[in-house]
């Protein structure tokens, strides 16, 4: 049980991710879908950051000390692995780009369909395709 509790930050990430996905699945408004995607992205970023945190560890630098001395020095030290952070810097950039692109699509969609609700847009598309097949 404690093992599961000890992983609470991962569980938080999972909950966050579920919230994001739920928004994508259940909301009709396109901006809300984008928000859902953003929340999911944030959950992934948090997951990476969380796993970069190493308790009782130290930076993986080639040391001249004995192994035991390293272990002593690292005791009770909270060490943050920089690599996941660096990775996430990239991922955040990707996320921003995705959001920007997605929102720009929404703007264009709103302009051409007059709506940003997916069901209304699809109904309009449905009409179009019905007209196309009726024209045959």
């Amino acid at each position, binding site marked *: 049980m404690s093992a599961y509790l000890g992983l609470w930050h991962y569980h938080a990430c999972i909950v966050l991710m579920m919230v994001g996905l739920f928004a994508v699945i259940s909301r009709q408004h396109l901006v809300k879908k984008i928000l859902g*995607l953003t929340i999911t*992205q944030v959950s992934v970023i948090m997951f990476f950051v969380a796993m970069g945190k190493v308790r009782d560890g130290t930076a993986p630098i080639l040391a001249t000390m004995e192994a035991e001395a390293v272990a002593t020095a690292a005791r009770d030290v909270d060490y943050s692995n920089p*690599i996941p952070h660096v*990775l996430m810097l990239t*991922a955040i950039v990707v996320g921003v780009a*995705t959001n920007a692109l*997605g929102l720009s*699509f929404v703007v264009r969609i709103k302009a*051409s369909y007059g709506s940003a609700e997916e069901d209304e847009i699809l109904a309009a598309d449905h009409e179009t395709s019905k007209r*196309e097949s009726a024209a045959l």
Partner: protein
Amino acid sequence: MFAPLADWASSLEALTEHFPVLVVVLPMLAAPLCFLVRHANLARAIGGLAAVACFAMVVQLLGRVLDEGVVSYRLGGWPPPLGIEYRYDLINTFVALIVSAMAAIVIPFGQNPRAFAVPPGRHNVVYAVYALCAAGLLGMTVTGDLFNIYVFLEISSLSAYTLVAIGSERRALMSAFSYLTMGTIGGLFFLIGVGMLYQMTGTLNIVDLSERLADVSSVRTLSVAFAMLFIGLSIKLAVFPLHQWLPNAYTFAPPKVSAFLAATATKVAFYVMLRVIFTIFGRERSFEQMNLDRILLPLSVAAMFMGSIAAIYQLNIKRLLAYSSIAQIGYMTLGISLNSESGLVGGIVHLFNHAVMKGGLFLAVACILFRLGSVKIEDMRGLGRRMPWTMGAVLIFGLGLIGVPGTVGFVSKWYLVVGAIERDLHVVAFLTLVSSLLAVVYVWRLVEVAWFSKASEGSSAQTVREAPLAMLLPVWLLALASLWFGISTDHSAGIARLAAQQLLGTAP
């Protein structure tokens, strides 16, 4: 007096050393350049040159790979586990060849302004996005670093969404949006998988990963990581039933974009899937521990049928081809799920074949759209008489989709059926053959409409001319390739076999 020449030669030789990275960097540099020049034809020239140069470099690299084995390039001079490595072995050089060849075919040849919603003065942007997309796809293919793959995946995806949104109809926007949504979810799943693998091994280098994973064989996280990577890639690859983004994206994108994406984007995703399954996790773990065949085999067979049946009933030729793509992706994943050398050869060779056929078909559709102004099958009545070369090429590709002997399609189906029989999966072999019959039906629909029906009175199919040579040229290049590689299989199937052996670790 020869000194400058000698200098030049030696600097060229030095440049050769950097080909592995230039393959990615060149189109990536071309993209902003295209954007800045603000002139459509100039941008086309820049993008086209970059693509052709890429293709030439990949050809040179393929030669090197065939001669020397793996070619590794260290970015910034750092040795692999620490620094990022671009690593060329047979399978990804083969895929890079397809991507760069397709880019070299699609980018330089005239785009059809009618297919764009972009104002004429801004066409340079289209080439910029093409180049960016090509850079992303090539990067994904050649990099040896898992996170790098993610980054390039997103670069290529973002530019692919943009390319789809360029389509002339407003439905293109919605298609691009749903492509973006699904693509992002797929990318995030992939990223989570990457994170879990890093968490367990502390490395992102693919080769290093595969070695270190041996120590963590029994960890449950590994299964989750595998599932995440697999599902994420399946979305990108449009494995049934995760294909929902694909039909509309291919339908409403400009046909040349569809040609480019159909021939490259899914292929690269398929390659990454091969990497994950066979190189990182290894055949044994993927199939015995993760029971990959148990999920992938039924999905592949379902894709073959659902895609083909849906294709039969489509009224729009691009939609028809899109659904047919889903079926063809089913053949490729079937090749993985058979878990045998012949099956894998079939999958890989079908990757190549499908790129040739679908790329060519969408380019032919571009010709049809250019002249006819419509992509509805009904409007193509009697078009065979007016545009014999275009429709003739469609027929050749169609025969390939069916798998008629003498075309590339036959070669891949042969390996798949042999692979299924080797594994005693007679039902699967049978179903593969039956699904080819469905392909007969949807190809026959095109043939019947084009050659055996009369154009309705006053329709534009009565008056159109054959497409211009510049558009026909790439179509027929691919059509001849689909015949050539159907007969002379040494190159396509030969390389595929070697690649499969490398992936399976059974290389002699």
